[in-house]
C-alpha cells in the first residue's frame, strides 16, 4: 500500500470520527491539525476508536496489522500527533510486515 492510500484511510477514519462529534467539536482535516498530545482533538479513548477504524479499513483490504503496540506508545515523538505522522506510521508498519 502506498502513502497516498494510507493517507486516504486516515482521512476516511477521521471523517467517521467527525460523524459522531457535535458541530463545535469537529476535527479540521488538515496537515497541521494536532490530533493527539498537547492541545490535541482526541483523548486516549478517541484515539483508540480512530485506530480501530483504521485497522478495520485495512483489514477490509486484507491487511492485518496492530497499530497501537507498546513500541508505538513509547516512541518519544508520538506517531499519532497529526495526519502526516499517522499516515507515515501506518505505511511503515505495513512495510515492516511485508
Amino acid at each position, binding site marked *: 500500500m502506498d502513502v497516498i492510500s494510507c493517507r486516504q484511510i486516515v482521512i476516511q477514519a477521521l471523517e467517521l470520527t467527525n460523524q459522531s462529534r457535535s458541530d463545535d467539536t469537529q476535527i479540521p482535516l488538515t496537515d497541521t491539525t494536532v490530533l493527539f498530545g498537547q492541545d490535541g482533538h482526541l483523548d486516549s479513548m478517541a484515539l483508540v*476508536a480512530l485506530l480501530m*477504524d483504521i485497522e478495520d479499513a485495512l*483489514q477490509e483490504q486484507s491487511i492485518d496489522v496492530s497499530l497501537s503496540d507498546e513500541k508505538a506508545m513509547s516512541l518519544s515523538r508520538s506517531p499519532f500527533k497529526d495526519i502526516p505522522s499517522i499516515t507515515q506510521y501506518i505505511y511503515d508498519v505495513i512495510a515492516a510486515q511485508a
Partner: protein
Amino acid sequence: MQVRNIMITGASRGIGKALVEHFLAMGDTVIGVSRSRSDIVSENYHHFLADVATEADAKHVFTSVKKQLGKLDVLINNAGIARMNAFALTPVSNVQEIMNTNFMGTFIFCQKAINLLRKSPNARIINLSTVAVPLNLAGEAAYAASKSAVETLTRIMAKEIGSFGITCNAIGPSPIATQLISGVGDEKINKLIQQQAIKKMATVEDVTNIVDFYLNPNSHMVTGQIIYLGGIS
C-alpha cells in the same frame, strides 16, 4: 423489539446451549462458538467451530460475522473449563489450559468484538464467572483464579469501553447441574450450597434471568458489575 445478533461462546452444551435456545426462542439471531459441533438447527443460528483461546480462530469468527451479519449486539463469554484439584497437586499444564480458555479466551473475544459492538445501540458484553471467586473455594485454585482474572477484566473493560456505548458485566452462577460440575461429588456440592443465603441448586433459567436484565436497554447505566446467584457476596 429489534432482532439482536448475539454471540455465545461455549454454545454446544450446558449454560451456553440453554442461552442459545433462549435467544432463538425470542427471535434473535444467535452465533454460537465452541470446539465441538452443535445439534441446534435453526435458520437464525450460525455455529462456528473454534477454540476461544486461539487468536486466529477468533479472527476467523469475527471476520465471518462481519461479512454475514454486519454487526453484533451482544457477546456472552461462557466458554470455560474447570479442573478440581488440590493446589499442591495441580499440574502446571492444567493451570495453563484453564487460564487459556477461561481468561485468554474471554480477553481475545472481547477485544475482537469491540469494533462490531460499537455499531450497536445497546451493545453488551457479559462474562461468566463463578461463586468460587468470592468463596475462595479450596480445590479450585486455578479455576477460581482464572475467573478472578475475568472479573478484574470485566471491571476494567467497563471503564475503557463505556465511551463506546458498550456495557460489560459478569454473572457468577452458584452450582447448577451441568457437565462442568458433573465430576464434583454430591457432598461437596451440598457443602457449598450451605454457604449460600438461598440454599438450593440454581438453574440455567436463573442465569438467563440475569442475562436478560443486563441486555435490557434500560440497563444502560449498569456496567462493571458482578452478580452472584444464591446470595453469595
